[in-house]
């Protein structure tokens, strides 16, 4: 295995490297910054994706009573609050010693699949489809959701309504649109009434049908651009995801499975309540974000990828018929090339969206949803770990609670953190392929952003006050002077003062 981590971090003479900074990224949640360090021959030697995610959040929650955690953690992020809500709830289930009732389990699962549906719809239809439908080098003024709405009104309309349906599932199960309180330590605080169930049932068949169409669109895009999709931002990695006891895709609960880049199993059905026996985190001086790695392989060799691509390829099957059929076609496509391509993640994501729609359909017919046994408790514990497969990948919440019911330690490993090294690898692959000379171009920047967006990273800040979204790109030569600069203002206009 090539030691790419070391290659990226240890140029022979870093003082002679030029620096390309992209800050922040567009259509990625929160603010991020990319630094490309190039040598005098204009070759990319180092890549650093800087993320300020969750800085201080673990401290923010320490000292709070444990029952507040499922609600408080939703403030982390504007795009995946439900995932944090449920992961924290699962950790607190351990704290209160609970075994979930059938009603609580199904209501939570319904909430989770609503979240998967709406998040995947947003990502594919609104954040990535502009790139995929118009091309990475197309007019920036067109390459956005408004442009999609103008050129492909039916696709845009379906994206809007799929997203809305997922949000309604969340509202029904969580009680509110945001800051929901539906999931609590040991269970849920409400069931799903007959009226609420029927309200969702009237749209579910259409939702499944549109999700099936979305899988076809994703496949069509891959087929139409086969060479580009097969090679873009390509890199090999180990994979990690959660699977059920029988190896099926299960986004809510299961054991951890990891495979190496050749598909060999590293561990399987591992009890996540002791995740630190298989996953450790490394800290690096240039970023606030940690670098997790598989303990048995060490920090340099053990980095891995999580998310839809890992999940769909690692599971033995998908327990809903249409999504499983789509998975089989995905794995067989072009000798398996889509299953190992970075841009194959969009296709995998749509397969998961179809699975989520089918799961919602099944769950809505379950009588347990109307049950009244909502909460259980057992022997109080001081430590709780909750793991869930969030839209972007495996999400780990770990808490320690003292005898006064206060949280005294909190550790979160979010999907974007798991994918940290993988994103750096994707950026480096793109940069080496597309950087030409010393001139920064809009096309180059967007290729890098397309690679990052494939992971749908949550760079989290949820602070979107108006007027806060500039994009600045700076190119410094080997002597530290400015060779080029490109600024994208909050209204999307580019300006190059050089």
């Amino acid at each position, binding site marked *: 295995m090539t030691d790419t981590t070391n290659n990226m971090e240890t140029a022979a003479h870093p003082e002679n490297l030029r620096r390309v900074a992209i800050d922040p990224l567009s259509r990625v949640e*929160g603010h991020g910054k990319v630094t490309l360090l190039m040598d005098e021959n204009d070759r990319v030697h180092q890549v650093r994706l800087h993320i300020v995610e969750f800085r201080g959040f673990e401290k923010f929650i320490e000292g709070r009573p444990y029952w507040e955690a499922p609600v408080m953690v939703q403030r982390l992020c504007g*795009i995946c609050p439900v995932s944090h809500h449920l992961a924290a709830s699962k950790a607190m289930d351990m704290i209160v010693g609970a075994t979930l009732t059938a009603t609580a389990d199904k209501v939570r699962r319904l909430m989770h699949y609503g979240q998967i549906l709406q998040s995947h719809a947003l990502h594919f239809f609104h*954040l990535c489809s502009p790139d995929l439908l118009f091309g990475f080098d197309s007019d920036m003024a067109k390459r956005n959701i408004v442009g999609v*709405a103008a050129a492909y009104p039916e696709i845009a309309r379906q994206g*809007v309504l799929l997203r809305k349906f997922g949000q309604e599932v969340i509202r029904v199960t969580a009680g509110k649109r*945001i800051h929901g309180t539906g999931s609590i330590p040991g269970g849920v605080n409400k069931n799903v009434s007959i009226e609420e169930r029927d309200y969702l049932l009237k749209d579910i068949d259409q939702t499944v049908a549109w999700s099936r169409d979305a899988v076809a669109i994703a496949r069509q895009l891959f087929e139409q651009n086969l060479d580009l999709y097969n090679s873009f931002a390509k890199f090999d990695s180990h994979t990690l995801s959660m699977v059920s006891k029988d190896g099926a895709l299960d986004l809510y609960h299961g054991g951890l499975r990891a495979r190496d880049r050749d598909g060999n199993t590293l561990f399987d059905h591992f009890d996540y309540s002791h995740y630190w026996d298989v996953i450790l985190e490394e800290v690096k001086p240039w970023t606030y974000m940690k670098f997790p790695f598989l303990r048995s392989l060490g920090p340099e060799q053990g980095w891995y990828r999580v998310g839809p691509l890992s999940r769909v390829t690692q599971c033995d099957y998908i327990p809903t018929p249409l999504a499983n059929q789509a998975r089989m076609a995905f794995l067989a496509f072009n000798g398996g090339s889509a299953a190992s391509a970075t841009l194959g993640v969009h296709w995998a994501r749509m397969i998961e969206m179809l699975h989520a729609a089918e799961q919602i359909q099944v769950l809505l017919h379950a009588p347990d949803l109307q049950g009244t046994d909502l909460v259980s408790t057992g022997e109080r514990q001081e430590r709780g770990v909750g793991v869930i497969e969030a839209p972007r990948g495996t999400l780990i919440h770990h808490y320690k609670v003292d005898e006064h019911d206060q949280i005294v330690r909190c550790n979160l490993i979010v999907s974007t953190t798991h994918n940290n090294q993988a994103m750096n690898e994707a950026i480096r692959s793109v940069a080496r392929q597309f950087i030409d000379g010393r001139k920064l171009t809009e096309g180059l920047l967007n290729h890098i952003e397309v690679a990052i967006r494939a992971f749908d990273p949550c760079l989290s800040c949820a602070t*979107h006050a*108006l007027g806060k979204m500039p994009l600045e790109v700076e190119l410094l030569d080997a002597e530290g002077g400015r060779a080029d600069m490109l600024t994208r203002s909050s209204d999307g206009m580019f300006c190059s003062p050089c």
Partner: protein
Amino acid sequence: MVAPILIFAVGNASRGDDALAPLLLRQLQPDSLVQAELVEEYQLQVEHVTDLSGRSAVLFVDADVSCDAPFRFSEITALHDNSYTSHAMTPSALLYVYRQVYGVDAPDSFLLRIRGYDFELGEPLSLKATANLEVARKLVVGLCAAASPSVWREKLQANLIANN
């Protein structure tokens, strides 16, 4: 029955002055909300066009880091802007998508930007933002009393004159 007024507050209550809009909503008294529905979200997204349908008037409220204190109140129209940054859409871009989805123009819409200063996680509202919030709240109470865009425009004009 859809309430004629929609007030859409955008912000995260746990991030300092980003809480301005959510807090404004929470400070409104029920007796001033007979004609209004209140919606709070972290950020605007495409599905929110479904909330606009059937309204007489829509008010978006958000913290702003660039406007003059205490606030800026303006009428907005659909705009094919280039706000492709992040997961958040501008109110004007949302109105544009509304037209694409429904085939007609969105209801008359207004934007209230309240000046904020600090947006750190876990920080309370700053003192200067607190003062701006109180002034903005009085304006919104007056808007809630009349579900008429023409009356809102009169208040807009009066506000402009007062600021000049």
